[in-house]
C-alpha cells in the first residue's frame, strides 16, 4: 500500500498535468525515493491511484534506466563508462570498486549496502572519470580517494 506521504506527493504532481496518467513516471520516482526500488505491489498501487492498468505502469517502469524493478542496495553506485570517461580510464575506477566490494556490474553486496551499475555519461565529461553515488556526483576521480568516498555511505 502507498503511504499517505507518497500519495500526497503523487497527487501534487498530478495537478501539473491535464490528466492523472501523465504523472506515471513521477509516481514511480516518488515511490522509489522512499523504497529504493519498485516491486509488483507498488506497480499495482500506482496504477490504482492513477486509474490506469498495472501493465501500463510496468511498461513505463521497465523502460527507464533509472527506475529499478529489482531490489537494489541502500546506495547505488553509477560508474560512468561514457566516451570521455573511457578515454580517461574508467576501467581503473571500476576495477578498484569491484575489487573492494567483491561485486561486478549489476550486483549488490551481500549486506545490501551497495549496488554497482554502469551509466552512459553523467555530463561530467570535462572532469572525467566520474561516478555518482545516490544523488552525489564525484569527478576527477583518483583511485587513492575512492575508498574514502565509499566510506561515507553506510
Amino acid at each position: 500500500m502507498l503511504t499517505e506521504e507518497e500519495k500526497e506527493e503523487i497527487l501534487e504532481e498530478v495537478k501539473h498535468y491535464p490528466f492523472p496518467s501523465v504523472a506515471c513516471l513521477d509516481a514511480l520516482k516518488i515511490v522509489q525515493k522512499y523504497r529504493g526500488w519498485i516491486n509488483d505491489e507498488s506497480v499495482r498501487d500506482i496504477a490504482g491511484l492513477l486509474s490506469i492498468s498495472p501493465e501500463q505502469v510496468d511498461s513505463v517502469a521497465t523502460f527507464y534506466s533509472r527506475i529499478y524493478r529489482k531490489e537494489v542496495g541502500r546506495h547505488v553506485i553509477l560508474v560512468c563508462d561514457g566516451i570521455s570517461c573511457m578515454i580517461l580510464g574508467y576501467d581503473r575506477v571500476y576495477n578498484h570498486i569491484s575489487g573492494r566490494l567483491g561485486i561486478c556490474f549489476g550486483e549488490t553486496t551481500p549486506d545490501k549496502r551497495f549496488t554497482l551499475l554502469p551509466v552512459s555519461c553523467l555530463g561530467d565529461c570535462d572532469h572525467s572519470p566520474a561516478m555518482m553515488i545516490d544523488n552525489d556526483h564525484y569527478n576527477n576521480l583518483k583511485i587513492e580517494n575512492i575508498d574514502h568516498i565509499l566510506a561515507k555511505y553506510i
Partner: protein
Amino acid sequence: MEKPLTKHIKPDGSQLDLKNYVSEGGYAVLNKVLKKMSPADVIKEIKESNLLGRGGAGFPAGVKWSYIPSDKESEPSRYLVCNADEMEPGSFKDRLLLEQHPHQLVAGMILSAYAIQADKAYIFLRWAYKKSESVLRKAIGEAYDAGYLGKNILNSGFDLDLYVHTSAGRYICGEETALLNSLEGKRAIPRDKPPYPAISGLFGKPTVVNNVETLSNIPHILENGSEWFKSISLTGEGGTKIYGVCGRVKNPGLWELPLGTPMREIIEDYAGGMSNGYKLRGALPGGASTDFIVESQVDVAMDFASLVPLNSRLGTGTIIVLDDKTCPVAFIHNLIKFFALESCGWCTPCREGLPWVEKILRSIEDGNGRERDIGILKFHTVYCGPGHTFCAHAPGAMEPLQSGLKYFHDDFVRHINEKHCPWRS
C-alpha cells in the same frame, strides 16, 4: 569579443540569483516585449536573427515558432518545452547555463512562450543534473514571487506557468517527439512525423521544443536586435556558441565563442592543446552522433554550414578528441555500445542492427575479427542509416562508425590481421 550568454557567469561556479540578474538588467526586456511587441513581431525578430537550434539539428528557431497556429482562439492550449535532457555522451554544455544562469533561461522561456502564445511551459531535465534541478526550482520560485511568472505578468495580460520535469534516464528522450511521450508519462518512443509538434505536440496540442542554449539566447536577441546578433558571429549564422572539449587535452571545459570559431583555436588556445605525450588523431565535432574529422581538417570553422563539406555536423558543439594512445576501434565500440543500449526498441534496424554492430566491433577489438567483418559493418552504416529507421537514433550511431571505417581503416585491418588490439599490451 561579446559573450552574451556567459558574461554574468561567475568563475566560482555559483548561481546568479534573481537580485544579481535584475541588477545586471535581466528581465527588463520583458517590459519592452510583453507590452510593446506583438507575438508576430517577436517571431519576426527571431527569424531575422538566424538563430539556429543549439540542440544539434540547427533548425532555425524562428521558423519552428512560425509553424504554431497564429490564431490563439482556434487552438487556445499550446505548450513550450525546454529540452534540457542533454544525454549524448561527451555533451555537457547546457549544464553550465542551467546551473549558473537559470534566470536567463527562465526569461528566455517567458519570451518564447509569449511568442507562441503558450500559457504552460515545461523544462525536461536530464536525470543526472541534480544541482541544476535545485537551482532551477529556486530560480522559478523567485521568478513567481517577483511577478515574472504566473498570472498577468508585469500587468501585460500574459500568463505563464513553468514546471520542472526531471527525467528517469534514456538518451532517446532527447528526440523531441520521444521527449513529448515521456513528458506524457509514457515510454519514450519517437512519434511518426508529420504531424510535427507545432501542429500536434504535447497532449495533442501545438508545441514548440527548444534547447536550453537556444532559449537562453532569446532575451539577448530581443534586447539588442537581430542585426547585433548576426554581427557577433564569424559567419552568417548568428550569435555565439558554447563550445566544449573533452578527452586527452590539458584543460577540458566549456567556452562561449563567436559561432564559426575554428576547431583548432578551440582545442589549442582554449583547451590548452593535447596533454603531454599525446597527439591528436581526430575528433567528433559535436557529440557521439557526429562524424569524425581528422587532424588535417581541424582548421574547419565550427558552425553548421562549414562542417557539411567534411561530411560531419556541428551537433552540440562539444568536441570529443581522439588521441593517438586511444584505440579508434575501442573508441567507436564504446559509442556503439551506448547507442545499442539506448535504442528504444521500436524499429527493427535499430533494435537488432545496433547490437549486431556492437558485437562485431567487440570481437574485432578482442582479436576475434574476420576479414569480412568490415564489409558487414559497412553494410550496417547504410541499412541502419537515414531512410531505413523510424527516427534519427541509429543513423546518428552510424556517423562515427562510417567515418571511422574511412579514416581508421588501417587500424581495423591491423586488429583483424594481428588478432589483437595493437593498443593493448
